[in-house]
């Protein structure tokens, strides 16, 4: 029943076996398309489908990501943007989990002056924080506000699809913890994976398609009013000003 979690390990294994028969990886192999890809297994193309209708806005994913990835205080690799929507006098909530879209055409990569940020051959966009100079050009170039400067490493930081977990055959922490099963993670190169099926059959949408980034985080039930910059009243809540407070781990 829970495709996002229980079937993942099985699916990943099948994909690995199936990969031996895959002749070529479209993006990585296309001449001149993306010359900057390295590392990772080209047999996979990791992606996520977010079923907005199943998100209850509990922020468990937000917290799980912070704990898993040691994200500094007041910084977020993922968050569930939450809106109060009033229509004809009736108010309701709208939840939109946001994270790096691991785009097929990531605008953050060509701008990087040192090559610190790159796309693995399995599609995951990562930052080598031993190389990054913290120029923040990638932070500017990302149309999704998915990147930030980590003030503990003083380098660019972002969601990595929990690449360390994925390589160990586990799900990203946000997917693992999602109580509603709203986040579905898998391999687009495996035609039988849950994400492939959903992308093929459910016609999901992506954020800011006009940017031409070809995101690999898809949304089911995405209201067009939330597809780009949201036209509404901004939140009153802000992170505290104590940005560099020392973290204490339990």
């Amino acid at each position, binding site marked *: 029943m829970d495709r996002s979690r229980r079937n993942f390990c099985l699916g990943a294994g099948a994909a690995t076996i199936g990969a031996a028969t895959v002749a070529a990886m479209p993006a990585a192999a296309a001449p001149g398309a993306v010359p*900057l890809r390295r590392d990772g297994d080209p047999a996979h193309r990791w992606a996520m489908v977010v079923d907005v209708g199943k998100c209850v*806005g509990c*922020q468990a994913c937000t917290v799980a990501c912070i704990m898993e990835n040691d994200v500094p205080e007041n910084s*977020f690799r993922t*968050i*569930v*943007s*939450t*809106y*109060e*929507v*009033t*229509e*004809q*006098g009736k108010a309701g*909530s*709208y939840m939109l989990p*946001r994270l790096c879209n691991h785009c097929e055409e990531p*605008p953050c990569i*060509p*701008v*990087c*002056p*040192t*090559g*610190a940020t790159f796309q693995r051959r399995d599609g995951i966009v990562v930052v080598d924080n031993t*190389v*990054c*100079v*913290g*120029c*923040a*050009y990638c*932070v*500017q*170039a*990302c*149309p*999704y*506000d998915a990147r*930030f*400067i980590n003030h503990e490493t*003083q*380098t660019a930081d972002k969601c990595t699809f929990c690449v360390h977990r994925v390589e160990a055959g586990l799900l990203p922490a946000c997917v693992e913890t999602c109580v509603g099963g709203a986040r579905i993670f898998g391999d687009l190169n495996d035609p039988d994976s849950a994400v492939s099926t959903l992308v093929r059959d459910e016609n999901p949408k992506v*954020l800011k398609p006009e*940017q031409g980034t070809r995101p690999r985080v898809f949304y089911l039930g995405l209201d067009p*009013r939330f597809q*780009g*910059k*949201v*036209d*509404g*009243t*901004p*939140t009153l*809540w*802000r*992170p505290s000003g104590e*940005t560099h407070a020392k973290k204490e781990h339990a």
Partner: protein
Amino acid sequence: MDNHIVEVINVTREVAWLPWAVQYFFLIGLSVGGLLLSLPGYAFAREDWRALGRIALLVALTCGLAAPVALLSDLHQPGRFWHFYVVLRPTSWMWWGSVFIPFYVTGLLVYGWAGFREELQAHGQVDSRLAALYRLASLGGGRNDALIRAAGLFALAGALLVALYTGAEVAVVKARPLWHTPFLPIQFLMTALAGAAGLVLVLNRFAAGNDRAVEVRANRLLAGFLGGVMLAGALWLALGLFGLDSTHAEALGSVAGSEAWRVTAVWAVAATALPFAIAVAKPARTGLLTGLIALHGAWMFRWTVFIGGQTVPKTGAGFYDYALPAGPEGLLGIVGTAGLWLFLLIALTAILPSPRRPAPAPTRAAQAPAGPVAAAE
């Protein structure tokens, strides 16, 4: 019926390009502008442009040396700056910048030395303990117009590349509609020229001979540059207002609803139109005022583009708040860069004091002591 959206929870992304970046773009723009203004008098040896060119050369050198320090400070890992130089990243305008900046600054230093060599030689001929150092610095030569021209053209090539990359680096960021406009490089260049003319006017008053001819000429140049600034701004606005171009319409749309941005726009127009009107109507005895306003305008344009631009959320509703921090990531960065520039100006004008003009205006003649040229110390 009442339909609206209230954002309840979202992340606020802090500005990632800090006031250091504003200072860098401001100073490097002034340097490029100063270099361009110095060329007629020095590289092309036009004697009537020489006095203005000397001040412009001071602008180019002081700003050009302070600017890279501000840029380095904007990196969150400044100690890793050498990472730029061990890779080939032609897809990144910032990487090109790391190539162009040393090229430009080297050219500028050689050109500055060639331009001031005549003065170094003169200081080497007075009876002073430092005379030997001046003679050493002049490498035993004096004015060499061919050398000045060659170095000037070399520095000009660097300046044009810097102007190109600084504009393109920001204009290619499609994620920020306000930046993603082909007008931005032109606006950077025009405001830089206006700022450089402004700084020439200010330095003419405080760090040079308060030359009336320089003031009038610089004010006329300033008026021309400000005219260009207004023209580029009007075109940008027209393209957005009339929906002729979707990029500009989007850029305008992202800020048009904000009262703060409207006030900023009115302020910017005033800070351009006012010195323009003064410089056209009364180019003499107004240089300090027009110069200061023009400098303010050039800085404010960059502040608005960078800090203001980053307060427009890419996905969230409304605008992010920005409060200038007092520390190195804010006010201290601005003050520190200004202090460095001032130090460079004091050092340079101490080493190379303004030459006394042979036949100044009668009112100035009384102040100019007769006798041999005093040594720098």
